[in-house]
């Protein structure tokens, strides 16, 4: 079993009011020096069986058509090894 992570972020040119609201709150919390915040989404897919090229291709297709709206968002697919049970 493996974990595949799909990170989805708004494209840089798209206004992100959520990220801006977070950024504006930072000085009130005593956090200085953060000039910009953008907020995205992270999907963790637990995949049965090997993550071979065919499986990755299907996940890319899924990300492209469903998890991300590529009109407004970019996405990155990463494979993470899941730690063995009972480690």
């Amino acid at each position, binding site marked *: 079993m493996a974990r595949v992570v799909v990170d989805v972020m708004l494209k840089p040119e*798209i*206004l992100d*009011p*959520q990220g801006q*609201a977070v950024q504006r709150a930072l000085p009130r919390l005593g956090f200085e020096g953060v000039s910009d915040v953008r907020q995205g989404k992270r999907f963790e897919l637990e995949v049965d069986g090997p993550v071979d090229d065919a499986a990755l291709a299907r996940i890319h297709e899924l990300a492209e058509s*469903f*998890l991300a*709206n590529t*009109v*407004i968002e970019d996405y990155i697919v990463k494979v993470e090894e899941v730690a063995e049970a009972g480690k």
Partner: protein
Amino acid sequence: MTARIGVVTFPGSLDDRDTQRAIRLAGAEPVALWHKDKDLKQVDAVVLPGGFSYGDYLRAGSISRFSPVMETVIEQAKSGMPVLGICNGFQILTEAHLLPGAMLGNNHLHFICRDQKLRVENAGTAWTTDYVSGQEIHIPLKNMDGRYVADERTLDMLEAEGRVAFRYLDFNPNGSLRDIAGITNEAGNVIGLMPHPEHAVEPLVGTGRTDGLPFFTSILKKLVNA
């Protein structure tokens, strides 16, 4: 025989009954359609109503876009069947790529509910012939994710081809680029808009005006004369 206009109910649709009522008031026959059915019951046109289909999880309209009924709606829309998407329906139409661009959260992050002034920019679509281009109307608006965005090239193309069908006047309620409230596809049979014409069809409720009724009389006229 009068025109049959389908109204799709998704889990989370809120305005399906109001839409059916508006269709009836305009003199057409509303037909209830269910999101799990591929069959459109031989309707002449379809309205995707407002609400929060599938809870708007992931993105507004993104899950509904893959419902069985949408397979048929997408296919039929491409071959010319009139489709109107109101609010959540507009979001579904952009997610389905029947209309260009995308809908995002309001720029102020708040849900908004108000009487909105609009200008009818294109009275030549299947759903707008009973308006006059340039006409100013008042229609209720209520949404969380009403910010229309598209890249500059797409926006220029929409403007050049007269596909900005409705524009916000006096106040941009959600940060929509170029004050866009509604757009049409190239053929003029598919329309999406954020404000709710189905809530402005009787003088007793909503704005107290009936500025939304021409949507439904336009399509009825088109279908009956077809």
